[in-house]
């Protein structure tokens, strides 16, 4: 059954995007360079965008890791540059934390904290607009009226804020997710101060 775009967007927002920082961190640990990571992530979303239905995806996190891994391996193979560490790279990509488990439940409160953190990190005007639009659920028009600006300004600021939030989502060290995942980081040791 074909699902509506709204359903797919909601699924990606709730089950895929929150894990992006973890997938990026894992790709980094596997030795990928920044530009490649951007490409792998983008292609993963492209594959999701091409789906008619996401009903078969039982764990967004596992799906994200698996797809990113496949794309990364394809890229390494396509590069056709025989390098001594190629095999190691592919091996490194095999260490994937993608085991779904019944106790990995939607951690609503933590997610909420993350949303608030993201919005609070925006420049003042953006922050006001995002608070009204996304937290209070005002329309663009109502937001413009409240702030005494034109709708155009609201839209421009929304786009700007969205860019910043997407950047923050991809850069977030995902500390707040370490509880959700398992001890899946054999190569990295996080220092605690």
């Amino acid at each position, binding site marked *: 059954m074909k699902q509506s775009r709204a359903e797919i967007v909601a699924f990606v927002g709730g089950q895929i995007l929150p894990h992006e920082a973890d997938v990026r961190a894992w790709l980094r640990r596997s030795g990928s360079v920044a530009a490649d990571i951007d490409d792998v992530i983008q292609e993963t979303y492209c594959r999701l965008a091409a789906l008619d239905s996401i009903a078969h995806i039982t764990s967004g996190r596992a799906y994200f890791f698996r797809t990113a891994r496949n794309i990364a391996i394809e890229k390494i193979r396509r590069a056709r540059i025989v390098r001594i560490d190629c095999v190691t790279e592919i091996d490194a990509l095999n260490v994937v934390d993608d085991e779904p488990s019944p106790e990995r439940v939607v951690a609503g409160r933590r997610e909420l904290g993350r949303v608030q953190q993201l919005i609070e990190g925006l420049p003042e005007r953006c922050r006001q607009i995002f608070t009204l639009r996304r937290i209070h659920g005002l329309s663009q028009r109502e937001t413009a009226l409240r702030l005494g600006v034109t709708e155009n300004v609201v839209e*421009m600021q929304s786009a700007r804020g969205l860019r910043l939030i997407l950047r923050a989502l991809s850069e977030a060290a995902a500390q707040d997710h370490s509880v959700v995942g398992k001890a899946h980081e054999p190569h990295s040791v996080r220092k605690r101060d």
Partner: protein
Amino acid sequence: MNPIPSASEIDEEASDWAARVDARDLDVEHDPELQAWLKGDARRAGALLRAQAAISFLDRGRALAGAAPPAQAVPVADRPSRRALIAGAGGAAAALVGGIGLWSARPQRLDTRLGEIRRVPLADGSLVAINTKTALEVAMKPKSRRVVLKEGEAWFQVAKDPERPFVVAAGPVRVRAVGTAFSVRRGDEAGAGVDVMVTEGVVEAWVEGDPAPRRRMSAGSRIVLASAVSPAVAESPSEIERSLAWRNGEIALDGESLEQAARLFNRYNSRQIVIEDPVLARERFVGLFQTNEPESFAAAVAATLGAVVKDDAEVIRIGRARIS
């Protein structure tokens, strides 16, 4: 000649488009300008999905939070009236979900087929996960949010709105919430009752026409109402999480009998499991399976309990190995 744009350049353009789609309620599939942009580079579709997903992610925050943030987060003194806020919330959510359950008085029907599991955002910012073979009706009204569970099971993550109670009706049973998460399941057989499990916050549950006082239940508690046995609230957070594994398309068994396990799988699949031996049917089993893979369950049972599996297109029979 233009150099090939980088992933992050595409992301920036996609953010502009996502903001525009959200602000103007554009139809992604039919807006000619947007479609032209998407066709210009295969990577743009992914970037747009990601940017729209980020907006949806932020909106989930509202669904989860329910309550308004502290007053100082609102920049202007003249806070809008509660009604304006509610109307705004509905508008934004409706724009986001492309018209699922607008403010119409006509209830919206949500059904799932055998084996189908759906997650659907509602117009008020709530989320509903609908289990196999379920029929729901959702009516969003200015003063109330009402869901009728005609059959099956659903889990609700309710956006907080004290002025619009969220009530789920399942037969004579009513479950009321203001901002919380809980599931309601109607048993298949007559007299099986309605199983209510609370995963977050507090709900009130009662049976229509029953003089017994309403029960307040908090996270981690469970009750079966309107069944043959008298109801009692049980505290079983881990069991509840396990019972709700279907939200991830999974069945988590932890000491259920094979008979109970077979009944669970049979809720999702036309290919039914039959445990042929009564002694075997009482054996207890532990494991995590996909709802749509009864074969894996049968194989695991065969391997661990030495059972014999005979299957055809319609039935998977699990029997005892003949001792010779």
